[in-house]
């Protein structure tokens, strides 16, 4: 009440006398002003006597209050008020130094006023420059000065520029001697703005450079627990932005950088090179000219001498930018071409290293040359034409494969660079004159017995061939012949690389490959097919056929060829399943390559799907006497291999294209409509859903239906969906063939996952639930029903459908089932893992991110609880289910749960079930790396159990156990040392494991244990 009566006067008195909480008074006064109860001028009036008080401290309190009030209500100030206040504050700057900080606060508030009249910003700055010795202020107050300047630069740019170079000079004085990193960041930003926004520097260029470059290179190390969070990197970047902001600094900066590059401190070298890189980007010939030779010798020295990859990279990058800048400049009127003379220096210093017989500095030299050549077409032309003849000659002079390999690797580097320019510049191709020699060298490399040399040869040849318009048709024929040889020759070690090269080159030279490689491969495939020993060669040919199919016109050759071969193999029946699977794999690879190219993919879809379906239907309807005579094509492994072939042909096609064939395929399965199949005279009707138990062979083909319908995009409409779902449901619980009913369940789940929520889905789910409930009671159907339950649960878990909880609970309850328990436990793996053929992202399934975390949170507590309550003989089922779920999760999610789960995990290690052992180990390993604290409490148990598992009969368990033993070494040393000898002793045994992969892990683990607590580790 008292405050209100006395109004502002009272508040002012309270504040200035400093008897009570000043903050409250400041706020209260500010509020009064903001509320319109009084004006700022009234406050000034009220302060009157204090502002004139003879005691500086009292005057200070007065000014402080005023400034705080202004900071709160500066947006409300009128132009008139501002004018008065500015005058007042400018005067106060001359007052006692104790008052200055408060004055600056007030000026800061005024600097934010939009109503500040024209001219006053300049006036304020002049006053500050004149009256305040900024560097003797406290850090906070200096920061206010920078803020005032920043504010004005943002809002009063024109006005400030009227000060011309005085402003720049004023600021130089303000920041000269600044030491605080927080202020430096602001000051650097101001300098950068002065330069970038073209404030006049006048005669002060060098001073401005000096006042900033004195901090280079930054050697600031933030104190531990620094609350400001300023890093050395922040300062480096911000200073670099200043130094590299203008060509005017060039004459000062370049000598400085040349000096600092020679520093002994690695970080100074790196910083200098990076700054050089940044500044070269804006320099032209004029700035660089004088320093070129010193710059080159510094860069060369760093790259030649350094052991640090970082410095090498930065050095090369700086050289690259330097050459780019020189390339940008037009050749001067005096005809002096700086780029040309600079490159001459580079060539002169590097070239001879390429010819030294001991090849000592070849790599640094080649890297320097390539960095320069990569800068522009001109550099590339000059360097390439000068270096290529040399390298070609060197190739012939060296006879050792390893040396030749080095040369071809260098050639490869130059060829790759060539590719950067050739498209841009139409004129002369630097390589034209060397083409024949290059080809000769490549062919020599390709025929060398040294595998490594062959490999770079292949890569270099690919690079050469990728250069537009260089190789002629006859060259390419020779290239194709070499690649063919590398693919099919005995013990071909580089066949994969040769195939990859064929794929890349075929894009550019489709006819050469279509007319030469494809027929040869086809011929090879035919001639050797009777030889069982040739199976690896056959696979190579098949794989090569898919690899080379990178152009639509080749696809049109290879697809029919592969399909004919498939038919051929089926009739021959000598090669049985393995041969068919190889063809399918090849077709699949081919489809993956076509996916980016609609034309090829559409052709593939139209050609492959009817053909495969026709073959399958034919086989299913074929009359056979006994089960044993069943056609190879109906082998589960072959059908499984066909699934991805069909899927890949469907998943990437647009709804418009794919809709007609959806009707055809659904019609085939639901109504036996075979009209679209290429060969469609069958002995009987195809009716996989109606055929009953006698037609299990037809039912198996549901896998192919799944392969077709499940990967379709979600907006493709599937005709007769209800009917189809119903038939699938029936088949999934009635077939006796596991492959058929599992495929039906998967197909059903795949479709349900994509069904939009609504009545239709609810009805379908309702009928599934009924079927599952009743089926689990019945003795005959139980395994089938569990399969259905698993897949449907997965479909719903993925899309967060509300019903998923109920289904998962059902599954958990089955863990105690005497018959289905173990299978239900395995089923948890299915729920949380990615499945390759259905219900995944590639199939456009509805998969919510974090579904695993959600599943974990909802179900792990239930599983743990039930585990503790379960009978001993059922516990392994819970452990298995749990370990599957835990294993699927990222360790960050698992970590917080670890304390509660650890005893269970340790128990799981003793579980005799190998699957449980393995997944527990896999789960433990990352935890050992990150949760050392908790785990170190259980060392005895851990070490004992892990060591005993290193001798498990299962190889995968041995490997995982050894990986864990290795991971143990991350625990604190004092925890480990008592076990060191025991572990080293125990690991001697797996060193002699019969499996190499196990030995490898044992070696790694044992090596690390040896190093524990040993000097030098």
């Amino acid at each position, binding site marked *: 009440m008292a405050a209100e009566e006395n109004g502002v006067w009272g508040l002012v008195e309270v504040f200035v006398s400093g008897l009570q909480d000043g903050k409250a008074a400041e706020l209260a006064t500010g509020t009064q002003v903001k509320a319109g109860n009084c004006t700022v001028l009234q406050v000034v009036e009220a302060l009157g006597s204090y502002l004139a008080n003879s005691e500086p401290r009292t005057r200070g309190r007065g000014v402080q209050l005023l400034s705080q009030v202004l900071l709160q209500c500066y947006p409300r100030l009128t132009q008139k008020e501002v004018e008065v206040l500015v005058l007042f504050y400018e005067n106060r700057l001359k007052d006692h130094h104790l008052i200055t900080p408060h004055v600056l606060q007030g000026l800061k508030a005024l600097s934010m006023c939009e109503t500040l009249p024209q001219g006053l910003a300049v006036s304020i700055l002049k006053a500050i420059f004149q009256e305040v010795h900024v560097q003797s202020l406290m850090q906070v107050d200096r920061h206010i000065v920078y803020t005032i300047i920043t504010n004005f630069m943002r809002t009063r740019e024109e006005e400030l520029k009227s000060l011309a170079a005085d402003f720049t000079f004023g600021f130089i004085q303000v920041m000269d001697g600044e030491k605080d990193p927080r202020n430096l960041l602001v000051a650097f930003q101001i300098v950068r703005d002065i330069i970038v926004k073209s404030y006049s520097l006048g005669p002060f260029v060098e001073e401005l450079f000096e006042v900033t470059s004195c901090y280079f290179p930054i050697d600031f190390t933030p104190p531990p627990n620094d609350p400001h969070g300023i890093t050395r990197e922040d300062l480096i970047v911000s200073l670099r932005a200043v130094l590299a902001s203008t060509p005017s600094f060039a004459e000062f900066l370049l000598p400085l950088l040349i000096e600092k590059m020679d520093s002994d401190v690695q970080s100074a070298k790196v910083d200098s090179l990076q700054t050089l890189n940044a500044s070269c980007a804006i320099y032209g010939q004029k700035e660089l000219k004088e320093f070129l030779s010193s710059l080159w010798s510094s860069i060369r020295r760093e790259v030649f001498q350094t052991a640090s990859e970082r410095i090498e990279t930065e050095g090369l990058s700086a050289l690259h930018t330097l050459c780019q800048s020189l390339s940008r400049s037009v050749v001067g009127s005096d005809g002096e071409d700086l780029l040309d003379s600079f490159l001459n220096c580079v060539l002169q210093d590097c070239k001879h290293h390429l010819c030294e017989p001991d090849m000592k500095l070849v790599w640094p030299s080649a890297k320097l040359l390539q960095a320069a050549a990569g800068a522009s077409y001109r550099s590339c032309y000059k360097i390439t034409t000068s270096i290529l003849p040399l390298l070609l000659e060197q190739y012939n002079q060296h006879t050792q494969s390893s040396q030749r390999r080095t040369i071809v690797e260098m050639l490869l580097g130059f060829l790759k660079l060539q590719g950067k320019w050739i498209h841009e510049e139409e004129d002369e191709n630097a390589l034209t004159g060397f083409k024949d020699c290059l080809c000769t060298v490549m062919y020599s490399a390709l025929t060398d017995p040294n595998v490594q040399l062959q490999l770079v040869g292949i890569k270099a040849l690919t690079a050469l061939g990728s250069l537009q318009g260089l190789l002629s048709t006859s060259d390419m024929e020779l290239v194709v012949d070499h690649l063919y040889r590398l693919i099919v020759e005995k013990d071909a070690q580089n066949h994969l690389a040769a195939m990859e090269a064929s794929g890349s080159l075929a894009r550019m030279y489709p006819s050469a490959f279509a007319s030469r490689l494809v027929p040869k491969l086809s011929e090879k495939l035919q001639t050797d097919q009777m030889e069982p020993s040739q199976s690896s060669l056959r696979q190579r040919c098949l794989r090569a056929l898919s690899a080379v199919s990178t152009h639509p016109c080749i696809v049109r050759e290879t697809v029919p060829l592969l399909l004919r071969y498939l038919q051929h193999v089926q009739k021959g029946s000598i090669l049985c399943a393995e041969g068919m699977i190889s063809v399918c794999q090849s077709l699949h690879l081919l489809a993956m390559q076509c996916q980016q190219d609609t034309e090829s993919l559409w052709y593939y879809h139209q050609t492959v799907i009817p053909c495969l379906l026709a073959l399958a239907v034919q086989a299913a309807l074929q009359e056979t006497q006994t089960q044993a005579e069943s056609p190879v094509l109906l082998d589960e492994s072959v059908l499984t291999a066909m699934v991805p072939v069909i899927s890949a042909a469907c998943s990437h096609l647009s709804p418009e294209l794919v809709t007609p064939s959806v009707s055809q395929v659904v019609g085939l399965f639901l109504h036996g409509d075979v009209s679209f199949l290429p060969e469609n005279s069958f002995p009987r009707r195809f009716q996989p859903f109606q055929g009953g138990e006698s037609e299990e062979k037809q039912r198996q083909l549901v896998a192919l239906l799944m392969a077709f319908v499940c990967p379709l995009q979600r907006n493709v409409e599937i005709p007769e969906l209800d009917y189809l779902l119903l038939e699938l449901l029936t088949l999934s619980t009635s077939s006796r063939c596991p492959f058929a009913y599992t495929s039906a369940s998967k197909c059903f789940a795949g479709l349900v996952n994509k069904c939009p929520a609504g009545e239709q889905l609810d009805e379908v789910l309702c009928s599934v639930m009924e079927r599952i409930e009743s089926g689990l009671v019945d003795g005959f159907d139980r395994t089938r029903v569990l399969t259905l339950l698993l897949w449907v649960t997965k479909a719903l878990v993925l899309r967060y459908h509300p019903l998923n909880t109920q289904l998962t609970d059902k599954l958990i309850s089955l863990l105690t089932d005497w018959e289905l328990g173990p299978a239900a436990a395995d089923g948890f793996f299915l729920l949380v893992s990615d499945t390759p053929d259905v219900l995944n992202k590639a199939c456009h399934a509805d998969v919510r991110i974090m579904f695993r975390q959600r599943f974990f949170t909802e179900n792990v507590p239930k599983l743990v609880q039930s585990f503790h309550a379960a009978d001993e003989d059922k516990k392994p089922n819970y452990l298995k289910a749990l370990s599957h779920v835990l294993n699927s999760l990222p360790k960050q999610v698992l970590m917080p749960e670890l304390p509660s789960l650890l005893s269970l995990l340790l128990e799981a290690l003793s579980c005799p079930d190998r699957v449980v052992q393995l997944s527990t180990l896999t789960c433990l390993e990352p935890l050992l790396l990150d949760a050392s604290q908790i785990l170190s409490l259980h060392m005895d148990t851990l070490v004992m159990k892990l060591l005993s598992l290193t001798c498990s009969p299962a190889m995968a368990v041995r490997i995982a156990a050894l990986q864990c033993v290795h991971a143990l070494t991350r625990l604190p040393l004092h925890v480990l040392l008592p076990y060191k*000898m*025991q572990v*080293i*002793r125990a690991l001697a045994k797996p060193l002699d494991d019969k499996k190499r992969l196990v030995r490898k892990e044992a070696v790694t683990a044992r090596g690390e244990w040896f190093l524990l607590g040993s000097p030098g580790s």
Partner: protein
Amino acid sequence: MKDSLTLLSRLSAHPDSRCWFLAWNPTGTLLASCGGDRTIRIWGKEGDSWVCKSVLGEGHQRTVRKVAWSPCGNYLASASFDATTCIWKKKQTQFECVTTLEGHENEVKSVSWAPSGNLLATCSRDKSVWVWEVDEEDEYECVSVLNSHTQDVKHVVWHPNQELLASASYDDTVKLYREEEDDWVCTATLEGHESTVWSLAFDKSGEQLATCSDDNTVRIWRQYKLGNEQGVVCSGSDPSWKCICILSGFHTRTIYDVSWSHLTGSLATACGDDAIRVFEEDTCSDPQQPSFSMTAHMSRAHSQDVNCVVWHPKEEGLLASCSDDGEIAFWQYQRLE
């Protein structure tokens, strides 16, 4: 030949480490072993099995390379890579370290007591052999430092009944020393081995010396005194030693040790090919040019290098061996009829 060497028992003596050397006490009731675990262990027989009677763990900072019993059986000397030699005194069943001999620059590789018990010899990688004198108060004084070898000295051993010392070295030679006017001098250098000589052993009489080497051979040397019948030349008054037999072609890797039984004259070897072999001089061979036959070959005597073999001093044919695998094995050798 196969059954001529039978395994009696095997025990893990220095687990997680290698066992370097064994020594029987003079009466053969105790066996001392030493190894990379820096300990010395004393083994005694209880019933049919060998048990560890005590572990001497505190004396050395590094590998204990060799041990040797004094002729009275009351002292044990141990040579270690920590550059010291410890003297342990037996008190009932326990051992106490009574003196630590320092002086070698680096690893002490071997130690041996003279038959009188008054002299002790040590040798080291510092290329020197030191002779120490022992008085009644158990005080040890170095009486000579012999720098005859040009390399690492691997082993020292005294003549069975004279004050004659022999040393084997990385410089491929063997040297013999005796006292002469208050100092010790090298009297003979035995040259012939083509690589490091790892160990040596005198026969019972001391007339013959067996040496084993990294060149995969064993050589037998014989002493010829001044004016010998065979006309072997001697320089000065000292006897001359001549190689009279080379056992080559039997061993496939370095031979680390040789032991010459003073009871039966059988020669046993410890080899880096994991085998133990026994040789006998052929009954009718010429003593000046004897021939030896291999009478036992236990090819996988240990799972790793065999470092040491030693015949029991009292029981004929009882042999102890030890290996890098940390184990000690006891064998019974049956002479062929």
